[in-house]
């Protein structure tokens, strides 16, 4: 048969709809081809024009983000962002989601998520040196949630531990909106010699296109959209597993072989195979280089017999790489791959015609302009509309309380603090991160558990500091603010160690973009993200968009997950959040502002505050972070902790627990005790310094124009915060006592609540069975 024979009935067959393409999209394909696509071509378009590959809804938004900055060597559009860190070295980093696969099969979904993001890193020529995982689930008491948590954590560990990349941080959040749709975002960081920076391009017509790594099977076909079509073509869909299984051992070999190929200058371009498989890897590399690629279908090594052409072309089998190789380098490339036990196949060659063409046994099965599949894919202008009510109103029947009144109502703030610090979202994540190898590589300076992760750059005094944060609770109320707060928190976590944030990667987890409200949330979040990054002077060097995060009847809270990597030139200047020495002076920098909506306190109190979330002043945030870095650089700081979830009280408690020492503070307050102690207004840090440096520290803060207050000292085995001043007196005096305005808890009690909270929330041992892994 001649594959390109005209099939004018394509639209009538409705095949495109089965493949998830709209009539409008089919017309757009026709206009790009000047004819009807055949079945194979249609399958290729259907994966490449999926939201996942084409960003057809989000592209116009993402274009508004700031992407340039000093030292940016690669930005969005490459597999990962790359930023110079001096001395000829650079860091590559990127975050990506694997929400849907993890919802179906948590272990393999999470595992292959780690595998995919690692490939994005070493494709750039960087050796992966760290992973962070940002996880979100529904109710921790629910058995299904426990099953998902267990599987996802095992999957992240099962993969990362085996490939030998330490998992050094992340976050774990429970929120009812993720009940039917968990969010699994994984960030990876790599280190490279600038000269070895490699791009995913297919230059030089005549060069060979080489596939190495695992063989191609039927797995993951339709990870994009083809699965929706049970009857697609003649392929036997019953044979097609819906779940991709990861092989971290193969990935480890891929890392070593790929880096060796790059180091020896044997390849012209390198691309990993992810969504869209061979179709995506070939069309993207060709498009970036302005070339074409001719693929010989029969040359692609398969794991199974009788695979249909479309199965081979869009299979998402894991652990595969595509290299563009000069013919005279082929033998050397083969030698490297085979030494690492990896099958190698020449599957095509680079052409000058700009087309992705697929041939088999002399016949041409498909011919499509590469750019039609990639940079010239369809773009949709979606409708955005804010929800009718922007603020979270209390649910019907729930009594409306002034939620910040809790302590005034006679409740001991110490009890509130214990409840907060032992709550599912704020307690220690030890149960999670002990399942991850966090020190393989012998570079982990600060392992998971106490703020931002710190990994050294071997052979230098430099360290990289990384944090992944996303604020879904404020995003649910105000997506632009939520995204900006996420950027502020992630960068602040980095800055308080003394490190300078280098750039931002982000993963936008949102609902169905064809719903105007969901698209409004997405566009607002992108606006907030862009504003925050511009204010902080940071480029967005990459990221990932995950849409359609909805289960029947409900979308997840908008979740802008922000990954930040920072650089500290001198390890000896690294600042920890743990209180250090008795007698150190405690200083609070930054100003509290009212607003409890979206706070952990509001969740605990079970009320929906009507006052809205606290405001974010980006200029103040930028000044605060610049100040903390300067103070750290001048060695004025003994410890630095930022105020985030749980507010000031939780920040202090963490410093006390981690430092195994208490503190005594007298806090003049102007707001209610709840706002002062548990409010989450941003741009605040708690610093300590030796008495000798305290004055200089306070002076420096003033020079940066920041509100600063010396509030107490480190010491003892209790955390004591006395509230004084206007805000404190009223309520307390009514009760005839000042004591209720003091928080006073033994550090050991705080530590106990913090240590056991998560395991208790998950019911001791999550009850999923640990059978399914290798």
């Amino acid at each position, binding site marked *: 048969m001649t594959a390109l024979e005209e099939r004018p009935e394509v639209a009538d067959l409705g095949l495109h709809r089965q493949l998830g393409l709209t009539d409008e999209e089919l017309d757009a394909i026709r206009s790009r081809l000047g004819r009807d696509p055949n079945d194979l071509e249609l399958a290729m378009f259907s994966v490449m024009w999926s939201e996942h590959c084409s960003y057809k809804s989000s592209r116009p938004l993402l274009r508004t983000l700031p992407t340039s900055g000093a030292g940016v060597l690669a930005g969005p559009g490459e597999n990962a962002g790359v930023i110079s860190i001096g001395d000829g070295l650079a860091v590559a980093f990127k975050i990506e989601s694997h929400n849907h696969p993890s919802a*179906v*099969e948590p272990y*393999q979904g999470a595992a292959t998520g780690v595998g995919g993001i690692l490939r994005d890193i070493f494709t750039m020529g960087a050796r992966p040196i760290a992973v962070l995982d940002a996880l979100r689930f529904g109710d921790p008491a629910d058995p299904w949630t426990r099953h998902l948590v267990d599987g996802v954590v095992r999957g992240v560990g099962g993969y990362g531990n085996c490939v030998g990349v330490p998992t050094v941080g992340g976050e774990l959040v429970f929120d009812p909106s993720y009940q039917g749709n968990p969010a699994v975002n994984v960030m990876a960081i790599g280190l490279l010699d600038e000269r070895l920076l490699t791009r995913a391009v297919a230059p030089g017509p005549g060069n060979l296109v080489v596939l190495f790594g*695992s063989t191609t*099977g*039927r*797995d993951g076909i339709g990870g994009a959209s083809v699965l929706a079509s049970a009857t697609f073509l003649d392929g036997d869909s019953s*044979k*097609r*597993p*819906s*779940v*991709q*299984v990861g*092989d971290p*051992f*193969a990935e480890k070999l891929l890392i070593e072989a790929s880096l060796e190929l790059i180091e020896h200058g044997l390849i012209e371009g390198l691309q990993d195979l992810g969504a869209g498989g061979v179709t995506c890897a070939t069309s993207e590399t060709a498009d970036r280089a302005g070339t074409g690629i001719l693929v010989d279908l029969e040359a692609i090594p398969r*794991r*199974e017999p009788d695979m249909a052409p479309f199965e081979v072309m869009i299979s998402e*089998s*894991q652990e595969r790489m595509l290299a563009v190789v000069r013919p005279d380098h082929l033998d050397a490339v083969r030698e490297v791959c085979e030494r690492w*036990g990896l099958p190698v196949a020449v599957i095509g060659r680079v052409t000058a015609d700009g087309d992705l063409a697929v041939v088999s046994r002399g016949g041409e099965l498909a011919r499509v302009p590469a750019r039609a599949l990639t940079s010239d894919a369809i773009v949709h202008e979606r409708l955005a509309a804010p929800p009718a009510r922007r603020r979270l109103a209390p649910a019907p029947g729930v009594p409306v309380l002034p939620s910040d009144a809790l302590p005034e109502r006679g409740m001991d703030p110490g009890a509130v603090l214990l409840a907060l610090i032992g709550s599912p979202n704020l307690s220690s994540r030890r149960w999670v991160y002990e399942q991850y190898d966090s020190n393989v590589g012998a570079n982990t300076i600060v392992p998971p558990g106490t703020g931002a992760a710190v990994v050294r750059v071997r052979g230098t005094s430099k360290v990289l500091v990384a944090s992944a944060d996303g604020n879904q609770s404020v995003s649910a109320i105000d997506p632009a603010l939520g995204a900006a707060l996420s950027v502020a928190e992630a960068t602040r976590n980095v800055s308080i160690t003394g490190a300078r944030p280098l750039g931002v990667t982000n993963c936008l987890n949102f609902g169905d973009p064809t719903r105007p409200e969901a698209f409004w949330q997405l566009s607002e979040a992108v606006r907030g993200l862009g504003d925050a990054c511009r204010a902080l002077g940071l480029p967005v060097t990459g990221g990932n968009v995950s849409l359609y995060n909805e289960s029947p009847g409900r979308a997840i809270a908008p979740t802008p997950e922000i990954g930040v990597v920072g650089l500290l030139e001198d390890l000896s200047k690294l600042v920890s959040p743990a209180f250090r020495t008795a007698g150190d002076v405690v200083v609070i920098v930054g100003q509290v502002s009212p607003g409890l909506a979206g706070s952990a306190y509001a969740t605990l109190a079970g009320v929906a505050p009507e006052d809205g979330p606290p405001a974010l002043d980006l200029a103040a945030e930028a000044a605060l972070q610049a100040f903390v870095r300067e103070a750290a650089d001048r060695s004025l700081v003994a410890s630095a902790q930022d105020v985030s979830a749980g507010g000031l009280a939780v920040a202090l408690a963490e410093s006390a627990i981690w430092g195994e020492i208490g503190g005594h503070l007298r806090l003049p307050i102007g707001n209610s005790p709840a706002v002062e102690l548990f409010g989450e207004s941003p741009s605040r840090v708690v610093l300590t310094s030796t008495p000798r440096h305290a004055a200089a520290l306070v002076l420096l803060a003033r020079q940066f124009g920041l509100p600063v207050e010396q509030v107490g000292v480190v010491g003892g085995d209790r955390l004591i915060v006395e509230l004084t001043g206007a805000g404190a007196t009223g309520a307390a005096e009514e009760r005839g006592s000042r004591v209720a305005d003091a928080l006073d808890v033994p550090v050991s009690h705080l530590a106990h609540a913090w240590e056991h909270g998560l395991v208790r929330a998950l019911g001791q041992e999550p009850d999923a*069975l640990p*059978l*399914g892994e*290798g």
Partner: protein
Amino acid sequence: MSPTTSFRFAVNVTPKPGILDPQGRAVEGSLGHLGLSGIHDVRVGRRVELTVEAAGEAAAREVVERLASELLSNPLIEAYEVEAIGAASSARGDGAAREARA
């Protein structure tokens, strides 16, 4: 209560056809080092042996079926089969070749 009898079963869980089996591949890859050849299609799965107290074999098998489908296997990637093995299996010798008992 009615009296019950003990029935011993094995549940064999194997990766479904088409599902990548990295363990099986690793075994195949190592055969050369062992000086063995002519071995292929290696699939590595799990075998769970257990005893069920039930009124009769049919009832026992029903329990095992439920256990196998809900707990012991992951239906997305694994297939299972239930095998009656009799009580003797727990007393068998080490590594002795033995035909499976029906």
